[in-house]
C-alpha cells in the first residue's frame, strides 16, 4: 500500500510537553459560588449545566461563598485538614521508604488529598467504598491504622493481604472498604451491584466508587453508568480527573470534547463537575449526591477536577512527558493550602498550630513505621510463611494445591 495523501485523523491536543510552558487554558472554570444548587430530587435532564460548569465554594481569598457552602463547623474542617496532612505525610514517607528499598512499589495521592478525605467525611460509616489505588485518604478517614497500611506495603508478617497483593492494594471489611484491584476500573460496576443489593435488601446504605479519568475509557465505566441508570442504584460514581493517566493526557480519554461529568446526563444520570482541590465544594457535592441516593432520587456521577502533582508511581518519571513545573501552575491550587487558608481566614487556625500539627503527624508516621518494620520489610526481618500462597484460592484447599504446597516446601529444603 502506498500512502499518497496526508492523514486527516484528529489527535487530541496536549497542552504542554517537557520544555514547553505549562498551559491550563483548556480547563473550564466557574467563579466560586456561581453554580446554583438544585433540589435533591431534581431530574438529571433538568440540571445538565452542572456537568460542564465547576462547583466551587472557596474563593481566591479563602472565603466560603455561594449556595454550595456546606457550612461545616470549624472542628470538622480541622479534622479534614488533619486527615489531608496525614495522608500527605504518609505518602511522602512511604515514597522515601520505597526509594530506600524497604517496599517494592508505591503510589502517592499528592495534590488530590481533598478528593478522598472530603468525600469520605461526607458519607456514613455504613456506606461501602470501592476505591482505586490512589484513594489512601479513604483509609485514613475510616481510621484504618497506619500500622496496618504499612504492613501491607511491606508485605510483612502482619500484612492484611498475606503477601498476595502489590503495595497499596488494601482492603478493610470492618472499615467497609472493598479490596483494591490492580485491574483498572473493575470496581466501578461492582459498586453498582453492591448498591443494587442494598436496594433489594431495602437498606439505605449507598456505595461510592472512584476511578481515574483515564480508566473511565474501560468498558466497566459504561457498565456502571448503564446499570446505575437502569436500576437507579444508590451509588455515587466518582471520576477523579487529575489530567494524566501515566503519560496519557486526559484528552485521550475523551476530555477534549466534553467533560467526564457530562457522560452522566447522557445515561440519564445526574452529572456534576466539582473543584477537586476545594474541600468544601467536594464535601457539599458529595453530601448532595448521598442524599439523592439515600432518598431514592438516583445515582450521581461526580467529576473531581484536580491535578496529579507527583509521578504516577515510584516506577514513573513525569519529566519524560510533561512540563516540569506543571503542578505549580495548576489553577486550582493545592487542597491543603486552600483549606488552611480558609481556616485561618475564619480565625480557626494559625501557622503555629499548623506547624505543631505537621510535627505531630511526622512523629506519628515515623513511630508507626518503626512499629511496622519490626514485622519485617522487603529486605530484612521476619518473612511471611510461603504456605500462605496456597490458601484462599478456594475456601477449602483442594488436593492439587495441598500437593503443590508440599512440593514447594520440599523445594525450599
Amino acid at each position: 500500500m502506498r500512502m499518497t495523501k496526508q492523514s486527516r485523523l484528529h489527535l487530541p491536543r496536549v497542552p504542554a510537553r517537557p520544555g514547553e510552558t505549562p498551559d491550563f487554558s483548556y480547563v473550564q472554570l466557574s467563579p466560586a459560588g456561581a453554580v446554583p444548587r438544585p433540589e435533591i430530587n431534581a431530574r438529571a435532564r433538568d440540571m445538565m449545566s452542572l456537568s460542564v460548569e465547576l462547583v466551587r465554594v472557596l474563593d481566591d481569598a479563602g472565603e466560603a461563598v455561594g449556595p454550595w457552602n456546606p457550612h461545616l463547623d470549624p472542628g470538622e474542617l480541622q479534622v479534614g485538614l488533619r486527615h489531608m496532612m496525614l495522608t500527605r505525610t504518609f505518602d511522602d514517607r512511604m515514597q522515601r521508604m520505597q526509594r530506600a528499598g524497604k517496599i517494592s512499589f508505591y503510589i502517592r495521592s499528592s495534590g488530590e488529598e481533598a478528593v478522598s478525605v472530603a468525600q469520605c467525611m461526607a458519607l456514613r460509616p455504613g456506606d461501602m467504598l470501592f476505591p482505586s489505588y490512589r484513594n489512601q485518604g479513604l483509609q485514613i478517614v475510616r481510621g484504618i491504622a497506619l500500622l496496618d497500611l504499612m504492613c501491607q506495603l511491606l508485605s510483612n508478617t502482619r500484612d492484611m493481604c498475606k503477601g498476595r497483593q502489590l503495595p497499596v492494594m488494601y482492603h478493610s471489611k470492618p472499615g467497609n472498604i472493598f479490596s483494591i484491584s490492580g485491574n483498572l476500573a473493575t470496581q466501578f460496576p461492582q459498586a453498582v451491584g453492591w448498591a443494587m443489593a442494598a436496594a433489594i435488601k431495602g437498606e439505605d446504605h449507598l456505595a461510592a466508587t472512584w476511578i481515574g479519568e483515564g480508566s473511565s475509557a474501560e468498558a466497566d465505566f459504561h457498565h456502571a453508568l448503564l446499570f446505575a441508570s437502569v436500576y437507579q442504584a444508590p451509588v455515587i460514581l466518582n471520576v477523579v480527573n487529575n489530567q494524566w493517566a501515566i503519560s496519557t493526557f486526559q484528552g485521550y480519554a475523551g476530555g477534549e470534547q466534553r467533560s467526564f461529568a457530562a457522560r452522566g446526563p447522557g445515561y440519564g444520570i445526574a452529572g456534576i463537575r466539582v473543584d477537586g482541590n476545594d474541600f468544601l465544594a467536594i464535601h457539599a457535592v458529595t453530601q448532595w449526591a448521598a442524599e439523592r441516593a439515600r432518598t431514592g432520587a438516583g445515582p450521581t456521577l461526580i467529576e473531581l477536577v484536580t491535578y496529579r502533582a507527583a509521578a504516577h508511581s515510584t516506577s514513573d518519571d513525569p519529566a519524560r512527558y510533561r512540563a516540569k513545573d506543571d503542578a505549580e501552575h495548576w489553577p486550582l491550587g493545592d487542597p491543603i493550602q486552600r483549606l488552611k487558608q480558609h481556616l485561618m481566614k475564619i480565625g480557626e487556625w494559625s501557622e503555629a498550630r499548623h506547624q505543631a500539627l505537621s510535627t505531630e503527624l511526622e512523629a506519628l508516621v515515623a513511630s508507626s513505621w518503626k512499629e511496622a518494620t519490626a514485622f519485617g520489610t522487603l529486605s530484612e526481618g521476619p518473612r511471611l510463611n510461603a504456605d500462605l500462597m496456597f490458601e484462599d484460592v478456594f475456601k477449602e484447599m483442594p488436593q492439587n494445591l495441598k500437593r503443590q504446597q508440599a512440593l514447594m516446601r520440599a523445594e525450599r529444603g
Partner: protein
Amino acid sequence: MNMIQALNSAMDIMLGRDPAVVLMGEDIGYFGGVFRATDGLQRKYGEHRVLDTPIAEGGIVASAIGMSVNGLRPVAEIQFADYIYPGFDQICSELARIRYRSAGEFFAPVTIRTPCGGGIRGGQTHSQSPEGIFTHVSGIKVVMPSNPYDAKGLLITAIEDDDPVIFFEPKRLYNGPFDGDPNKPAVPWSTHPKGQVDEGYYKVALGKAEIVRSGSQVTIITYGTMVFVAAAAAAAMNIDAEIIDLRSLVPLDVDTIATSVKKTGRCVIAHEATRFSGFGAEILSIVQEECFWDLEAPIQRVTGWDTPYPHAFEWEYFPGQARVTRALKSVLEPA
C-alpha cells in the same frame, strides 16, 4: 423431569429456601429465558428476585460480584457460553481473585449458568464449549452435568458454595439423552433413570466424578454431551468399558480417574470442545503422570476439530460415535 425442568426446580427451591438468592440475566425474568430455564420463577418470587438485565455480560458479572459482596447469592445466566467472553475480565481478574487478594475477608459466591455445546444448528456462535479456558483460571470451580438428576443436585450445591462456580449446561441434553446420531428419533428424559428427579432439595457434591458404567477393558473419561455418545459407541462395539462422567472439572476427581485407569490400563478421553489445549489435554496429562506404568497403549483424545463450529458441517465437526469407536479400537489394539 428434563434437564430444563431440573434446573428450574433447583433454582425454585433455592429461591424458596434462601432470600439471599437472586437470579439475573438476559430475557430470564418475565420471559423465563430463551431455553425456559427460569420459566415461572419471576411470577412466583417477584421482579426483585428474578431480574431482567441489560445485554451486557460484563455488566452482569460485575454487578453480580458486587451483589454477592453485599450478602446476596446471585445466579447469573449467560444466554449462550459463546457470549461469556465480554464478561471474561470480570470473571478471571475479579470473581476468581477476590477471596485470594483480600486474604479471605471478602468472597464472591456467584454462580454463572450458561448453555454450551452444539447439535442444535446454532453455528459457530451458539455451539461453543469454552470450559477448558476457565479451568486454567485459579479460583473458580467449573461444573458440567450430563443429566437432569445431576444438574439439579450440582446446581443447588453450586449456589450454596461460597466459591464462584461456572455451571455449563450441554444444551443438546436439555430435552433428552443423545447418542450422537441426529437422525435417530429423539429420546425424552422421562424414559431415562437420570430423568427421575426428586421434587425436593438434594445435593450432588462438586469434585466427585461418577462411574456411569464400570468395566475392565478401557476407561473412558468424559463429561457433558459425550457421556452418552461414548456409552453408545462402547456398547455398539460391545466392549467392557468403564465410563467416568467427571461432572465437575474443577475441582477434579483425580482419585476416581487414576484408580480406574490403573485397573484398565487403557484410556480414552472425550469432549466436544476443540482439541488443541482443550480440557482433554489436562486430563491426559494427569492420567499420564498418575498411571504411566499401567498404560498399555497411548491415551487417545476424542474431541471437536481445531476449527470454529461450522453451521453446515455440524455433524462432521461433532465427535460422534465413529470418532469414539476409532479411538477405542486404537487403544484396544494399538498399532
